[in-house]
């Protein structure tokens, strides 16, 4: 992976102009939004379904957009050297850009259907990026796990958003947030809430769905820094913050979010200090931070809203910086294992400055912004409306553990002496400019925003408008670096840092025993549940497949025939009773073609050659095309002719691969097949006759015929329907065809080794049942 042979800055950093220009665009909006204006752009998309392509920018959206484009700029620069030399670097930047636009879509979308579309796009780009090194089994597994967890959550979210839209009778978020009372008195409120929470919790890695996030560290480090700490995992938090005015500010919301968020915060912090991989330490502390954010949104008092928004920014700044550093260390030394690292302060001085600023902010030490964030968190818990001491205790213990994790990240690789008995694979060298720029810029941002936290620009305009969006009404926000009142809060901060350093002091001694213990506990953990579920589904699918698709083509056909007969046969038999047969007015050429069809059928039944049977079927197909012609459907006839031709070609190609024509059927089977065939034929005949007796509703047909030229400028109604009136169907059908082509390709390429040889006819079921057997055995 991060081959430490590349020292340069790479060639792709100029691409950072894309996120940078977006960032500059969003900065121009700060003034407008800060004064209460919310710019809205809207295009009609599917007006019939109330789906619009609309974006609005309020304080919350703008804060997120600035983080996404700002951190994105630094990540684009950083990845230039991190990914240098990777043969797929262009693909990497393409997916990264795709992700960034999707993520901006999530936070800016005003229509909830649009929000969902972008939400899913972020899951897909995350899947592609986690599995970027797709030849590694580890990456494949982690990518699939992230996709399945966030994807199932996405399904829940879709249902939840639809219910929300129905309850609010509006599909625009800018309206929904003012309809809180109406939504919460609706019977749909509870199901909508549960489904939306499932969506948000899976995306933002809340317990019990947290396990995918540490595994997502299989992604290249720029991805971990960008998607899995600063932006994408915050989508769930964003959604909760966005919907807080509509769904929240009641008891269910309070208890669910505080309990799940609080527990996730504790769990993440608890697991973070026990790790030896730098990226995993950071991943678990991200889980912890996401828990804290959910916890704060649930607390729902004025301080909690301030804390949530400030901590959101704090975490994006320091965690983005730390992940970039972990990648730089990996690049420089060839390892991220803290047991092999030490003394990097001299070797990587600029990286050290970045880490120093980031971990100081993480630990909540003044004058960095992290300090302000932590003070507000404590203030919020002290002022919480239950006033429970457990709420405060949760926050304090979580922060102690996070301080411990931060201390490990700063002290072990940079300040401690290099362990002599366990050196890293490479002698460390300084990181190139593109690799230390990001951490330093983010760290400096945390420092400056901490120093000037009280300024009107930061406190009232930027943060104030975001906090107002979260609260659902304008908030008076005045942030301070130095506490105004010396109550219990600064004392808690002191205790936190002191005990956090104590965690650092003992972490190495307790790490190994804790990991053994965790191994035992995790047997009952949610990740094992995930694997159990996955295995169960595969087992069930295997059984069903073995039952329905046993390798005998004739069994498939019989299954289809029986289903058809069962579903339709009874209906058409009943439908026939009491109906008079229509008089037959056959024209002579119709009779001739009909006879040809019957003759061809008889020929197929008795022929001993496959090729003969295929040609017989072709004759039937062409004859049916004649019938289309007779009844004035030249389009259908033409299509039928072409399809028949191609089917014969496909048949001929496949025939080569089949064993010789064998007579595997005995008399009993033949009788059985005859009965099935007769039943199906009879059903079909009766169905057609019934259909003729039912009066046709011509309204739609007449509408199409009348409007085809007026609306769609076409005289060929069939084609107008295909490409215009029902163009969406065609669009999806073509896509399905494309996927089918890929499937056929994969099947042929993947199974060819196991297919029976033309010269060695053998039992097909055996081949499919034991397809894991090595082909050499035959």
């Amino acid at each position, binding site marked *: 992976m991060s081959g430490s042979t590349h020292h340069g800055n790479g060639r792709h950093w100029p691409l950072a102009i894309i996120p940078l220009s977006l960032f500059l665009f969003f900065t121009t909006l700060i003034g407008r939004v800060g004064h209460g204006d919310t710019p809205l752009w809207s295009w009609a998309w599917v007006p019939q379904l109330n789906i619009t392509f609309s974006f609005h920018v309020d304080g919350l959206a703008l804060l997120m957009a600035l983080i996404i484009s700002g951190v994105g700029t630094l990540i684009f620069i950083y990845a230039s050297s991190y990914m240098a030399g990777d043969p797929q670097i262009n693909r990497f930047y393409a997916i990264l850009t795709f992700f960034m636009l999707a993520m901006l879509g999530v936070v800016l979308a005003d229509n909830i259907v649009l929000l969902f579309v972008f939400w899913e796009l972020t899951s897909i780009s995350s899947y592609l990026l986690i599995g970027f090194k797709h030849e590694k089994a580890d990456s494949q597994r982690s990518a699939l796990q992230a996709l399945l967890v966030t994807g199932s959550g996405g399904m829940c979210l879709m249902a939840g958003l639809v219910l929300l839209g129905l309850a609010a009778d509006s599909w625009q978020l800018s309206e929904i947030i003012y309809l809180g009372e109406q939504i919460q008195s609706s019977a749909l409120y509870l199901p909508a809430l549960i489904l939306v929470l499932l969506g948000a919790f899976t995306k933002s890695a809340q317990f019990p769905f947290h396990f995918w996030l540490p595994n997502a560290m299989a992604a290249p480090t720029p991805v971990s820094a960008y998607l899995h700490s600063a932006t994408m995992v915050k989508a769930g938090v964003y959604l909760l913050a966005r919907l807080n005015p509509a769904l929240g500010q009641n008891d269910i919301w309070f208890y669910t979010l505080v309990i799940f968020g609080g527990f996730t915060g504790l769990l993440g912090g608890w697991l973070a200090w026990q790790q030896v991989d730098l990226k995993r330490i950071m991943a678990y502390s991200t889980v912890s931070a996401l828990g804290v954010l959910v916890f704060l949104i649930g607390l729902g008092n004025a301080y909690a809203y301030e804390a949530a928004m400030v901590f959101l920014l704090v975490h994006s700044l320091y965690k983005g910086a730390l992940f970039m550093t972990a990648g730089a260390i990996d690049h420089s030394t060839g390892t991220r294992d803290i047991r092999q690292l030490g003394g990097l302060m001299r070797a990587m001085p600029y990286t050290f400055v970045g880490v120093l600023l980031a971990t100081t902010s993480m630990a909540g030490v003044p004058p960095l912004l992290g300090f302000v964030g932590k003070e507000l968190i404590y203030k919020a818990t002290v002022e919480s409306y239950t006033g429970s001491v457990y709420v405060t205790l949760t926050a304090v213990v979580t922060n102690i553990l996070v301080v411990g994790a931060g201390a490990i990240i700063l002290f072990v690789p940079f300040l401690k002496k290099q362990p002599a008995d366990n050196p890293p694979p490479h002698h460390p060298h300084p990181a190139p400019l593109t690799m230390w720029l990001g951490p330093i810029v983010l760290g400096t941002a945390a420092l400056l925003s901490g120093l000037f936290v009280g300024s009107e620009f930061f406190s009232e305009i930027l943060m104030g408008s975001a906090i107002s969006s979260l609260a659902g009404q304008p908030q008076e926000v005045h942030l301070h670096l130095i506490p105004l009142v010396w109550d219990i809060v600064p004392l808690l901060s002191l205790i936190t840092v002191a005990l956090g350093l104590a965690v650092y002091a003992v972490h190495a001694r307790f790490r190994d025993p804790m990991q053994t213990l965790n191994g035992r506990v995790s047997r009952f953990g949610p990740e094992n549940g995930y694997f159990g579920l996955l295995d169960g589904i595969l087992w069930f699918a295997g059984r069903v497949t073995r039952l329905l698709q046993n390798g005998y083509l004739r069994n498939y056909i019989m299954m289809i025939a029986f289903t058809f007969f069962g579903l339709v046969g009874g209906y058409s038999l009943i439908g026939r009773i009491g109906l008079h047969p229509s008089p037959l007015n056959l024209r002579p050429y119709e009779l001739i073609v009909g006879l040809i069809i019957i003759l061809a059928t008889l020929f197929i039944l008795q022929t001993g050659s496959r090729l003969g049977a295929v040609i017989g079927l072709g004759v039937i197909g062409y004859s049916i095309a004649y019938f289309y012609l007779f009844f004035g459907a030249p389009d259908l006839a033409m299509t039928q002719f072409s399809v028949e031709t191609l089917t014969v070609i496909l048949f001929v190609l496949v025939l080569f691969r089949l064993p010789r024509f064998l007579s595997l059927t005995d008399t009993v089977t033949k009788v059985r097949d005859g009965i099935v065939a007769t039943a199906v034929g009879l059903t079909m005949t009766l169905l057609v006759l019934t259909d003729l007796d039912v009066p046709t509703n011509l309204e739609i047909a007449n509408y199409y015929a009348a409007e085809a030229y007026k609306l769609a400028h076409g005289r060929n109604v069939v084609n*107008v329907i295909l490409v215009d009136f029902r*163009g969406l169907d065609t*669009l999806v059908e073509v896509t399905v065809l494309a996927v089918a082509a890929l499937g056929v390709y994969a099947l042929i390429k993947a199974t060819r080794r196991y297919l029976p040889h033309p010269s060695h006819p053998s039992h097909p079921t055996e081949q499919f049942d034991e397809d894991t057997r090595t082909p050499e055995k035959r």
Partner: protein
Amino acid sequence: MIQSLILRTAIRYLFPLLLLFALFLLLRGHYLPGGGFVASLVASAAFALVMFGFGVEHARELLRLHPLELIGTGLIAVVSSALLAPLFFQKPFMTGLWLDGLHIPAIGTLGSPLLFDIGVFLAVLGVVLHIIFTLAEAVQEEGEFNE
């Protein structure tokens, strides 16, 4: 591959004719029987003929593009014809757009549905040829394996 002089000679004449016929079907589709789907089937038949007469490699060379590229181009054309209206004309997704006044013989009025139909043509052609070529190559390899 079939080593027949008659077949090969016939294919030399049939191939361009079939392709022209496919183009004809594609362009007239909006007014008269035809359309992208049928046209793509006729074009696929043309390439299948070449495949039978001269082998898969030759048919692939004649196509120049990989079938997957055709599928991709086709899907892009289909989606972009649907996106033209919302992107440039402030109209809902998939609204048909027409160059009124410009009337070309045989094609009729130019509009986004023609682009849509061309997309369908390319995508379906790609799908059919991808399947046929893959199958033919599998048969060929197995044949060699037998010898």
